[in-house]
């Protein structure tokens, strides 16, 4: 149990995938204009990442490592994660229409997001057990979603502000992201 808490804390704060590892920057910059979009994106990412970490662990330990095919990790993970996400979307559409309504547009978007693949690869490199892999993916996704919502909130506020011309648009976003990243760097000290 304590190691679960440690993994969660590490992935959410200390090793936050966007701010410290710089993964998944495209949705971070792209889908962060409005809080409701950020929430949908975050929920969909949580779903996909948790699933991806579980399945890629199974693939890695049962197929890739025994046959010494670790060099196929990237392409094998992509194939399996993409098809599994498509599959779960089909099942979700049939059985959970309400959930599909909320997550429907976002799920295909993040199927092959760099964060999803990156977390799966880092996870297999870290040599976590199955349960820990799932917690790892879930924590990474919670960190990502939380940050996305925070960033969207900042952006919503900035949208109505009068900024000096050189700061407008992407510039202020980069600066905001940089300051957020600085904040997250501060967690490095409590690394267990």
């Amino acid at each position, binding site marked *: 149990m304590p190691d679960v808490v440690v993994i969660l804390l590490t992935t959410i704060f200390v090793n936050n995938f966007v701010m410290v590892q710089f993964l998944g920057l495209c949705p971070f910059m792209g889908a962060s204009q409005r809080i409701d979009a950020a929430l949908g994106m975050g929920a969909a990412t949580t779903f996909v990442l948790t699933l991806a970490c579980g399945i890629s662990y199974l693939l890695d330990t049962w197929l890739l490592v025994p046959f010494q095919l670790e060099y196929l990790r990237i392409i094998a993970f992509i194939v399996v994660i993409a098809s599994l996400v498509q599959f779960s979307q089909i*099942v979700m559409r049939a059985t959970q229409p309400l959930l599909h309504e909320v997550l429907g547009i976002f799920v295909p978007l993040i199927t092959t997001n760099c964060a999803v693949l990156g977390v799966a690869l880092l996870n297999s490199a870290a040599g976590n057990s199955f349960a820990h892999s799932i917690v790892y993916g879930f924590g990474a996704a919670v960190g990502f979603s939380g940050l996305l919502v925070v960033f969207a909130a900042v952006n919503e506020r900035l*949208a109505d502000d009068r900024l000096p011309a050189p700061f*407008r648009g992407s510039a202020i976003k980069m600066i905001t992201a940089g300051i957020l990243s600085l904040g997250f760097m501060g967690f490095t000290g409590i690394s267990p």
Partner: protein
Amino acid sequence: MIEWLPGVLLMTGLAGLAALLLVVARDRFQPETDEIVQRINQVLPQTQCAQCGYPGCLPYAEAVAAGEAINLCPPGGDETVTVLAELLGREQEPLQDKAAPVVAVIREDDCIGCTLCLPACPVDAIIGSAQEMHTVIEADCTGCELCLEPCPVDCIDLVPVPVAAAAPAFPDFEMNCINCGFCETACPRDLQPQQLFHERERMAALELLDLSACIECYKCDRVCPSELPLTRTFKAAKTRRQQQLNAEATSQRYQARFEAHQQRLASATSKVRKRPSSRDKSALLAKLGGDV
């Protein structure tokens, strides 16, 4: 043994398994019938016109879910066929006998006030009472022709209504977007013109990218090195969105009126009291014995 063989076998196996899984899932997990009927029904224009050969939009939605052709709805037009084809994963078919939109108009001099057309209207769009002239509320008439048949004096005409403007075409351009991002810096509203341009066909994406916040200032056009007609594209997209919203509002109004009509019919049969007839009265008296 050749050293690349296991890798190739594994990847082929994985891809094959994944494909199999998806194909099986698509066939097994069709959305539940009730839900799919609801979704089809939402797409239909709710004119309840029965031109498809079914008594209303919901029965037709049920029939489509059970495998009926998707191109039998003239009021929905080609747009409905497109949406249905996408929703159900079927082939798009051209619409059968497409008719221009019409509304019913009563020739007031000829109307004899028989009230026969009132119950025939599925959306309660005809008003009038016995021996009085009837008239059609034009805004609520769906042009379904169901009132023509009961009229004994054939005083109802179908009059074509001005066709709603077709969806505006997106302007042509010579060179495609090169994703330089200049437009994003130029946009005073901090929108993402290049994303908006790429997603111009997809309403849901435009909504997320906040198209409605565009103030049509043409600043993105001026900085675009490909000289794309960005603002004119966004204007067209906005018009399309508005047309879509209008069509949805109309169909929702039709549906609400149709449901009210159905409810009224149902409550009419259940609420009307059954009074004792004179025969019942004499039978009661006979039972009591003696004259009262």
